[in-house]
């Protein structure tokens, strides 16, 4: 089941660059929330603060609170722990090139010491079914490498890999931007189905995609969150003129 995310007074710096300013946000559980905004507005930085991935950059710094469920992720646990509860799918599919499809899916489990092969078989099958890839690869699980699939299939493999560790939240940073329309449609259908089990946060450049998959949308601009509301409201009658200008293409 997905949990809600509460963000209070979040500020983030890369070196001296104040990339996120006073973000306050409540992301509801078991819903899909889209984050839109022009390039460099901080939406990717924000999402990386939710699983402490921004800390992989040595000059990154954060203040403020992020609560996922009842856990303060900066005070109550280590980055490695939070990343097992909050999965991430990246813009360019990045399956592990030296591993088979099977090994890719259970990489998160195996690399963390979980090795019961019977259970792994079941988990791999369930994850691939959940990411709508099972039918296409079920005969080649251990024979084909992760990198030999098409772009759309690779991205679904990455989703399966993220789901295999049974996270509560799934973060998706422009998951379909490198894919063709058919693959994009498949991923969007997938997000729609996954909503019932996970909380999904999706960063996207594509507003029509945000409109298609997310119940709520947040608009970021210059490191601030300008408006956060139901997707319906944002796309038919936003409250802030900057939001209106962005989504009608008047700038950005």
């Amino acid at each position, binding site marked *: 089941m997905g949990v809600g995310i509460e963000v209070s007074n979040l500020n983030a710096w890369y070196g001296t660059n104040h990339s996120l300013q006073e973000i306050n946000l409540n992301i509801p559980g078991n819903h899909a929330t889209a984050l839109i905004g022009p390039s460099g507005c901080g939406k990717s930085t924000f999402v990386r603060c939710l699983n402490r991935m921004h800390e992989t950059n040595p000059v990154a710094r954060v203040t403020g609170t992020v609560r996922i469920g009842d856990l303060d992720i900066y005070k109550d646990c280590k980055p490695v722990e939070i990343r097992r509860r909050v999965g991430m799918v990246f813009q360019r599919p990045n399956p592990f090139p030296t591993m088979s499809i099977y090994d890719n899916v259970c990489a998160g489990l195996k690399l963390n010491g979980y090795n019961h092969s019977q259970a792994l078989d079941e988990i791999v099958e369930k994850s691939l079914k959940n990411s709508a890839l099972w039918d296409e690869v079920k005969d080649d699980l251990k024979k084909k490498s992760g990198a030999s699939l098409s772009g759309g299939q690779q991205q679904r493999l990455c989703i399966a890999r993220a789901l295999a560790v049974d996270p509560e939240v799934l973060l998706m940073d422009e998951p379909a931007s490198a894919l063709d329309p058919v693959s994009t449609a498949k991923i969007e259908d997938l997000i729609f189905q996954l909503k019932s089990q996970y909380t999904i946060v999706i960063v996207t450049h594509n*507003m*029509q995609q945000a409109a298609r998959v997310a119940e709520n949308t947040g608009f970021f601009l210059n490191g601030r969150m300008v408006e956060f509301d139901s997707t319906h409201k944002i*796309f*038919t*009658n*936003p*409250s*802030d*003129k900057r*939001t*209106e200008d962005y*989504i*009608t*293409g*008047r*700038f950005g």
Partner: protein
Amino acid sequence: MTRIRFQQSLEELKESLLVMAGLAEQSIQRAIEAYRTRDLSVCDLVSHGENAINRLERDIDQAALDLLAMEQPMAGDLRFILSVIKINADLERVGDAAKSISDRVRHMERMAAADLPVDIPRMASLATEMVRKSLQSFIEADAEMARSVLAMDDAVDAMNKAAYKALTKVMEEESHLAPQALNALMISRSLERVADHATNIAEDVIFWVQGDDVRHYKSLKTAPEPPATATAPDPPIMT
């Protein structure tokens, strides 16, 4: 400014709709003039004008459909195009009402004149004033002006109801005047329809400008108050 072509397309759409509006207004004014003067040549003008209105209705709908499909409009742009489509339909109906009135006038030509207890010219001037005002509110993207049109509909409705009562009484008591009374009743109904279409146009303008759907407020008990947080979007660039 980005999306220049799209904004020009929106502007062209607006201009087409204004041409349509001009044709519809002209039709209704000619019909009322024909009623006043009983001049059949003016009725002919109305009939000819009908073709141009119908053709333009199809062109405007096509242009709007293309914009929806090709440009993925959002927010204010989306509401604008939707309003244009609906106002387009209402204007075409206004043209139909004008034609209806002018057909009645032709029939009246063949009848004897009669003094009937109904003030057609006053209804006509109210109805045409509503049409003019609703179109003006569209041109200026003025939601307040549009709301004032909504208030005027009650008066026309009342006049239509009164006409109905009075004319049915005439048909019962002075049956030789029944044809003229029936004619007048039909003209009154057409004018009431014109007022309704003007009301629809005003409601569409409010939807476009404020994002607020104020239709059927009497039956659905939705108060026609302006919403607290809406912001009027920039109207398309006007030349």
